[in-house]
């Protein structure tokens, strides 16, 4: 009983092999003395595999990187305690991913003129840039710019809205 499956396998493989070629097993294949043109192979049915770069970001998946805004107090250009974890998470990521570059966009609330607010927003972007540099992020990965009061997150005209708009956004 034990031999039957093994025998069956041998028979089957022989039949299979025989089916592939008309050459008898005892016959040797002809030896080519002369170089010949390589056989034309149709590759149109080939399928090659691409391995997607393991989302070189944890940007999408790492919850620590989900927060990209650092908020500031009125008339202040110093990163607050609640902004430090945000800066640290991105600083760590950028230190480990030297190929990534970001824009740090500083923002202000709506009070005052557009150009002076642009300069004040720049101070916020610069504060975040410096904090990232301290963490070892290369200057070439960072560009501090300002939107001034032109890109409010909240459109109201009260302190609740303004506090949302005094911020720096990290833009990958």
């Amino acid at each position: 009983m034990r031999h039957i499956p093994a025998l069956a396998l041998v028979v089957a493989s022989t039949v299979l092999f025989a089916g592939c070629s008309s050459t008898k097993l005892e016959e040797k294949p002809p030896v080519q003395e002369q170089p010949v043109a390589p056989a034309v192979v149709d590759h149109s049915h080939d399928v090659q595999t691409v391995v997607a770069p393991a989302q070189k970001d944890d940007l999408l998946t790492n919850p620590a990187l989900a927060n990209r805004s650092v908020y500031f107090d009125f008339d202040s250009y110093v990163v607050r305690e609640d902004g430090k974890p945000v800066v640290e998470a991105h600083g760590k990521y950028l230190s480990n991913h030297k190929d990534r570059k970001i824009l740090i966009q500083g923002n202000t609330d709506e009070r005052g003129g557009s150009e002076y607010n642009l300069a004040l927003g720049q101070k916020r972007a610069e504060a975040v840039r410096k904090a990232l540099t301290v963490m070892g992020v290369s200057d070439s990965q960072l560009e501090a710019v300002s939107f001034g009061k032109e890109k409010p997150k909240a459109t109201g005209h009260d302190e609740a809205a303004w506090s949302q708009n005094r911020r720096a956004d990290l833009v990958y």
Partner: protein
Amino acid sequence: MIKRLVSSILFVSGLTCCVFAHAQLRVEISGVGSTQIPIAIASFADENLAPQQVSAIIKADLDRSGYFKIIDTGTAMSETSDINYADWKARGAFDLVVGSVQRLADGRYDVRYRLLDIGRQTQLSGFALTDIADHTRLTAHKIADDIYQKLTGIPGDFSTRLSYVTKSGGEYKLQVADSDGENVHDALRSIAPIISPSWSPDGTKVAYVSFENRKPIVYVQDLVTKERTVVANYKGSNSAPAWSPDSSKLAVALTLSGSTQIYSVNANGGGLQRLTNSGGIDTEPRFSPDGQSIYFTSDRSGGPQIYKMSAGGGSAQRITFKGDWNTTPRISPDGKTLAYISRRDGQYQLYAFDLTNSQELRLSDSGDAEAPSFSPNGRYIMYATKSGGRGTLAVVSIDGSVKHQLTTQMGEIREPTWGPFMK
């Protein structure tokens, strides 16, 4: 044939729709000069031939200026009509404007006008202008300019143009309009903010800051050819363009050093030169009319104040001392008056500062004034303000007496800049 007619009607109505959508700004006058010259302005003979009514445009210009009291004549009078001076004197007119419109064989319009002094019974001025139909408004503004100059001694600037930014829905537009808010054209449409438009001295180009590339970059756009040149796109922010009076350079604010500082660049890009060297904020440069100095905003003393330095950079002299927050310096065409925005008791107000005697005058009352801009004859300042929570433009004479507002039907209007006199 019928199909063709229908499609051309559709085309025409489509055009009407677009012209309407581009509709002019609405003017509201809320203050006039303390003395007004009574002037009778007759309808011009055959003026209905032209696309716009010339006499109506002249009347609106002079009325808006605040220095004229318009007397309606009720009748059309051409430059050849007989004038009954005694009659006009009895009606209180010091001056009388008459004229005519003629359509020439080549389709252009010939507009003739005369300005008459009723008391002296003489002609003060008069000329004929021939131009294409599209320039009928311009012709009327030029006549109003001439009347204003002959009767007040100051050049009229009705024929100059405005540039400003509108925001409606998610769209920003840099627009150019006549000084009365009519004849609106889009120079740039964008889904990103546009700020700080600045006219070239010859009035054919506008420099501005666009955020279309995720950061502020300074462009110069030729309004005629619509060619755009990037004049400042350095690492960091690029903003606050101001033309040198000879058009060769732009002063800009850049952040290459980490803080906002003033540099100059060539008007066609390149030629970077740093002009200020403080650790803080130096921005909003403006050349003096003689090109020798630059006024700017700096926080080197703590809060923002206005300073003045040589156009080549170097040491600066502080100009403003009243108030702890003064920004956005604009210098009058004669170099004698400085306009700026001062925060007093939390209110952002427009002030005019007489540089010859250091007297300041508050010109706004709403408390959210921004972006002042002198008219080219120096007699008015236009600025951005809010009305009913929406951005509008206000115009005030430098003595504070004449006031009017320009509003849009929808959306916000901001960042006004009054263009220069043109050839």
